[in-house]
């Protein structure tokens, strides 16, 4: 369970996050949506202790994110950031292997290699495993980064716009894989999405942010309505129902 309690964040005088309190239960897929600049990435960075907390508290299974040793947290949660500049010249396999670092401290065991191979398979990277990252396309690199986070094999997986750069096939593929590991292995996935229909199809719960606050929180069928979407995004989005699911059509 992730408990976020009274968290605020400000740069200089601008408030980025204002007094956010929300609980994300263990298990399942939670989608974080909202317009650009709403504070989704900032919130995720705080949960993943990439930024120091200014006020409030965040705990993960009762462990305070601020004071628990990084080593311990690295076995509990993995994070994929929205943009990643990797300093090193690495092959796909090396990068994915880094996901095992919290477990093996750099000495890959046979078990670690098995997990890496499995991740390469799962994200269709086996053919690319020997390639250097800078030679990959944007979508291929994104898949490698997701595979690295997956390899960390943590209870919590925080993904900031993992669908960036992915084509329709891989976007659906990734969402299905995430759904499956949530269902079969009881992982907790928090995922930032811009495509509301992916959120509607794969998430158990949607959290919507705007201007540094949580403005809506509920099941997909509660959130994906023209009214709610108007509160979140500030414009009229028609919603129809296909196969009993609400589908937003923000195209015209």
């Amino acid at each position, binding site marked *: 369970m992730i408990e976020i309690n009274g968290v605020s964040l400000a740069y200089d005088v601008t408030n980025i996050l204002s007094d956010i309190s929300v609980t994300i239960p263990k298990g399942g897929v939670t989608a974080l949506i909202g317009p650009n600049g709403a504070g989704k990435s900032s919130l995720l960075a705080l949960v993943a202790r990439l930024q120091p907390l200014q006020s409030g508290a965040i705990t993960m299974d009762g462990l305070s994110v601020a004071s628990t040793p990084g080593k311990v*947290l*690295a076995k509990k949660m993995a994070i994929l950031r929205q943009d990643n500049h990797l*300093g090193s010249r690495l092959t796909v396999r090396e990068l994915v292997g880094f996901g095992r670092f919290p477990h093996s401290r750099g000495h890959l065991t046979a078990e670690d290699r098995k997990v890496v191979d499995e991740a390469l398979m799962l994200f269709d990277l086996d053919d690319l495993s020997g390639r250097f990252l800078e030679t990959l396309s944007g979508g291929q690199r994104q898949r490698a980064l997701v595979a690295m986070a997956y390899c960390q094999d943590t209870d919590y997986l925080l993904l900031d716009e993992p669908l960036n750069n992915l084509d329709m096939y891989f976007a659906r593929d990734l969402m299905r894989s995430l759904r499956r590991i949530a269902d079969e292995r009881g992982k907790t996935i928090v995922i930032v999405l811009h495509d509301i229909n992916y959120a509607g199809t794969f998430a158990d719960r949607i959290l919507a942010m705007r201007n540094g606050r949580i403005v809506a929180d509920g099941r997909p069928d509660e959130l994906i309505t023209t009214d709610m979407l108007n509160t979140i995004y500030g414009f009229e989005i028609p919603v129809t129902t296909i196969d009993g699911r609400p589908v937003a059509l923000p195209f015209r």
Partner: protein
Amino acid sequence: MIDRRLIILTLLAAVCAIAFLTLGLRGNLGFVLTLRATKLAALIEVGIAIAVSTVVFQTVTANRILTPSIMGIDALYLFAQILLVLILGGLAYATLDASLKFAIGIAALMILSCVLILPMLRGRLDMGLMLLAGVVLGVLFRSLHSLIARILDPNDFAVVQGMSYVNFNDVNTGLLALASLMTLCALVLVWRARHILDVVALGRDAAIGLGIDWTKTQVGCLLLVSVLVAVSTALVGPAAFLGLLFVALAERVVQSRRHALLIPAAALIAVIVLVGGQTLFQHALGNSSTLGVVIEFAGGIVFLILLWRGSRR
């Protein structure tokens, strides 16, 4: 399994060392050999210290162009020494135990480099700004150094002058035992941290995500770098571009930034260049005092090439 390229480098380094010891042996064998062995040990140590400190420094500062010396860290060491001369007077300084001076220098360097460089890393200055800040720091401490040198009376000045330029001919062997101990300790720590350094090289966010305590690691690495720079500066004097040359060559050879490969490769290349170069200059060119200048020149060219390539990206 040891990498083939490392084996070749090790063999080359061994050949250089043997040539250095045995070429043109004359006179009292025992005496000459002891002399040469001491000098060889010093050269190897300096090479390793410079190479390893540069690798670690480049990894924590996330760039391939800066070396501790370009950031003025060795200038700090010299500055601390001349400050000591100023405070104690030349005679007292000269009679002060060499190891004690060295220890004071290292302590001062560790403190100063943390105080000065950590804020830069914290503020995540980009490479250009880091470089600028480093150059300014280096100039600042060198000018302070020469300012104090001017204030000093001529006798005191003679004491400091000897240590202001890189010179592989006139190695300060008196410190060898202590310096070896420090280098060895630093090396063991760096080697144990090699996988952590690999993760650090991924960048701050990725490293924290993988469980690295970022601040602690940065401080630790800077302290290690300080010790190694102090060792090499104390033994032979400041050497700005050497580290860059060694590491750039090593990266070419092993084609990787993995520290388990890069660290030994850079250290071996340093030994080959320094010991081999010294042998060559001593026996083939008959003038060994220019080695420092030549290697620095080569390093300077590598620096320019890296800058140029970096600016085109």
